[in-house]
């Protein structure tokens, strides 16, 4: 893992002191709310429906046991005993008091964490493949580049007041586990003919009101030019992005209005002017950062683990957990285990302080003290010896963290929605709870197989409903919540935006509608087809007919 040196420590400490001064000036009445708001947002502090909310960055989703314990401590001491992990690999605390926040930030700085740029119209926390460093299909570790981007983008003097927020995601694999096309800039690693690593640069993706998948503006960017190229993209956007309409201010609208080709020309012209100056990190600095991400000291283990095979044969529930929550590791004898934060009927992404502490301890016992946070709002232990999986699962099961549903229908992504969020139009969490309670039968979930179901409480689409196989968007009609369903979204390397299936459902109909959709799939699927494969083959019509009846479906269709 990356570790702060004296410069990182000093910088974060200075930032905390700066914010302490800003809070003091706000409380003393020297700063108006209008002037304070952008300052607190750039330190991750929102004012929500019931209280402040502090969003803490978990850079590229990597956490140490020590950091996880600190999050637990903050949840227990300065909040109400829990935290919410988000799709952007952040954690949110829902009840901090304003004058407590500088102290919380001090505590975070102790463990090399911060809340810088987790909000505001600036470059946000850069996200990455949660399986970075351990995935078998990886070309190079994306965390190295995400950390380089984190440092470069932190309090950038030119790009801190952009037309709108700006999100960058990096993946080091051809298989996209970071929804890179859904970001303002997506970086996907490839090798050139000489075998050198570089990035495909995709620009102008985003969800929200106008979901658009990012366009590739450069097929291959050598890694050593990463920062100058990013700077060129940002400079073009900062000057030309729209500032007259908040809904048209994201870079996706600029790329769309200029056309991807023209936009690429503008970027290339800017890049030509700056590509050989000091912004690009020298290779020795890249290597210095890369050294922090060296793999842990793995034991030399055989890949086949008879004890694991026996345990799988002996315990149906454990077998199901291994099937859904454990994936292959590049190191023989090791596995990657997902800790589900989606117990049936629970709040997606929430973890109690006790759970956080327990997971930290488990990570030390079974996983070199390292944890990951995935955009699917789950935790991951990236380095578990196969022989330890049973003991790990038993411990997790006792903590209500052993649900065997990663990638299943109850692995629902949900934003906080109207239960917490000031922007929301409808609640998300109770809908997620009701739907997941319909799918408590292990065998049924296995039978349904790989599927994604995401619920956003407003058009900002924090839960990525547009790219879910089944997307649910909460809307408000005269003070009453309704839920609009989209089908066919895909979040991986073949990213696609789902289409609205028909009129919205009310909060009591929506779980039935999801069951109906699943039933159509189960009746129509051919051997081994996943939900999305069946949908892509048969199209929306059979789903419409089941949901709305034949006549209405024809009208809606």
């Amino acid at each position, binding site marked *: 893992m990356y570790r702060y*040196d004296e*410069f*990182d420590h*000093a*910088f974060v400490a*200075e*930032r905390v*002191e*700066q914010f302490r001064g*800003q809070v003091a000036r706000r409380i003393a009445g020297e700063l108006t709310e209008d*002037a304070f708001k*952008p*300052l607190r947002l750039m330190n991750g502090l929102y004012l929500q429906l019931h209280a402040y909310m502090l969003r803490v960055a978990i850079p590229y989703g990597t956490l140490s046991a020590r950091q996880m314990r600190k999050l637990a401590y903050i949840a227990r001491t300065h909040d109400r005993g829990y935290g919410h992990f988000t799709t952007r690999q952040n954690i949110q605390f829902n009840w901090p008091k304003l004058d407590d926040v500088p102290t919380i930030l001090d505590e975070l700085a102790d463990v090399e964490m911060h809340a810088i740029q987790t909000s505001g*119209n600036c470059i946000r926390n850069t996200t990455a493949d949660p399986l970075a460093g351990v995935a078998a299909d990886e070309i190079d570790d994306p965390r190295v580049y995400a950390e380089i981007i984190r*440092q*470069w*983008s*932190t*309090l*950038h*003097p*030119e*790009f*801190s*007041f*952009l037309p709108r927020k700006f999100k960058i995601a990096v993946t080091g694999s051809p298989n996209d586990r970071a929804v890179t096309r859904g970001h303002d800039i997506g970086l996907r690693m490839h090798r050139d003919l000489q075998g050198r690593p570089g990035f495909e640069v995709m620009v102008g993706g985003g969800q929200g009101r106008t979901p658009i998948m990012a366009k590739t503006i450069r097929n291959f960017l050598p890694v050593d030019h990463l*920062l100058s190229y990013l700077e060129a993209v940002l*400079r073009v956007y*900062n*000057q030309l992005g729209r*500032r007259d309409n908040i809904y048209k201010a994201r870079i996706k609208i600029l790329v769309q209005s200029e056309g991807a080709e023209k936009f690429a020309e503008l970027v290339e012209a800017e890049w030509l*002017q*700056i590509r050989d*100056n*000091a*912004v690009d*990190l*020298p290779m*020795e*600095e890249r290597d*210095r950062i890369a050294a922090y991400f060296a793999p842990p000291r793995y034991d030399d283990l055989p890949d086949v683990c008879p004890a694991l095979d026996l345990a799988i044969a002996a315990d149906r529930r454990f077998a199901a957990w291994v099937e859904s929550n454990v994936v292959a590791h590049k190191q023989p004898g090791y596995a990657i285990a997902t800790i589900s934060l989606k117990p049936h009927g629970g709040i997606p992404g929430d973890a109690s302080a006790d759970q956080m502490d327990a997971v930290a301890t488990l990570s030390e016992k079974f996983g070199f003290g390292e944890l990951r946070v995935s955009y699917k709002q789950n935790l991951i232990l990236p380095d578990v010896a196969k022989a330890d999986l049973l003991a790990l699962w038993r411990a997790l099961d006792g903590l209500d963290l052993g649900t065997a549903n990663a990638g299943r229908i109850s692995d629902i992504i949900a934003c906080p929605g109207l239960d917490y969020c000031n922007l929301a139009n409808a609640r998300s969490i109770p809908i997620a709870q009701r739907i997941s309670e319909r799918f408590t039968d292990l065998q049924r979930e296995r039978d349904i197989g790989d599927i994604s179901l995401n619920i956003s409480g407003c058009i900002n689409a924090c839960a990525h409903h547009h790219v879910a196989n089944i997307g649910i968007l909460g809307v408000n009609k005269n003070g009453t919540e309704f839920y609009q369903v989209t089908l066919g979204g895909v979040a991986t390397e073949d990213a696609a935006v789902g289409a609205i299936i028909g009129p919205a459902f009310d909060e009591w109909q929506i779980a039935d509608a999801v069951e109906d959709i699943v039933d159509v799939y189960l009746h129509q699927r051919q051997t081994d087809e996943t939900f999305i494969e069946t949908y892509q083959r048969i199209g929306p019509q059979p789903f419409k007919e089941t949901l709305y009846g034949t006549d209405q479906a024809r009208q809606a269709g």
Partner: protein
Amino acid sequence: MALIKHGKLADNIWHDTDEFAELQALAPLGPVIVDLDIWRQHRDEILAQIARIGGRIGLRLTPGQTPDLVAADLDHFELIELQFAKFTDGRAYSQARLLRGRHGFKSELRASGDILRDQLTFMLRCGFDSFLVATDHQAEAILEAVEEFAHWYQPALDQGATIPALRRRIHGAAGASTADCAAAWAY
């Protein structure tokens, strides 16, 4: 209004005009700031007037006017003023970077409009060296903000060494001096 220049309160000697007629009445000309329209329409007359009777001219660019439009004329201006209509409109940061770094503008680069204390360091790092703010009190308050950070991660137009450069110095690799960093950034 109060002016901060090179880190101190200073008198504002510059006069604004939107009228070319008013400009012509000045003898010698200026110090006066004109907008891009006046400059484009009357460039030759203004230069002739300065040649004849002397004078000093400054230019005001709005956030949407790229510095490329006046790249060839920069030697004529003793001041360029960039505007922050709202503090959330960050276009002038890029304008400043381009004027200083790419086009080599060396004279006074002034920020005006909605300037907040907590943005001053960003402005300084983008090459601004004077700031026109609402009151003396505000000017004093924003001067305090300058010392809040010792070092920054990314190269910009200020003179301090960046954190990556300092690391290289400490870790013994080919160390880059402060001057190297500043020079390398001039593009």
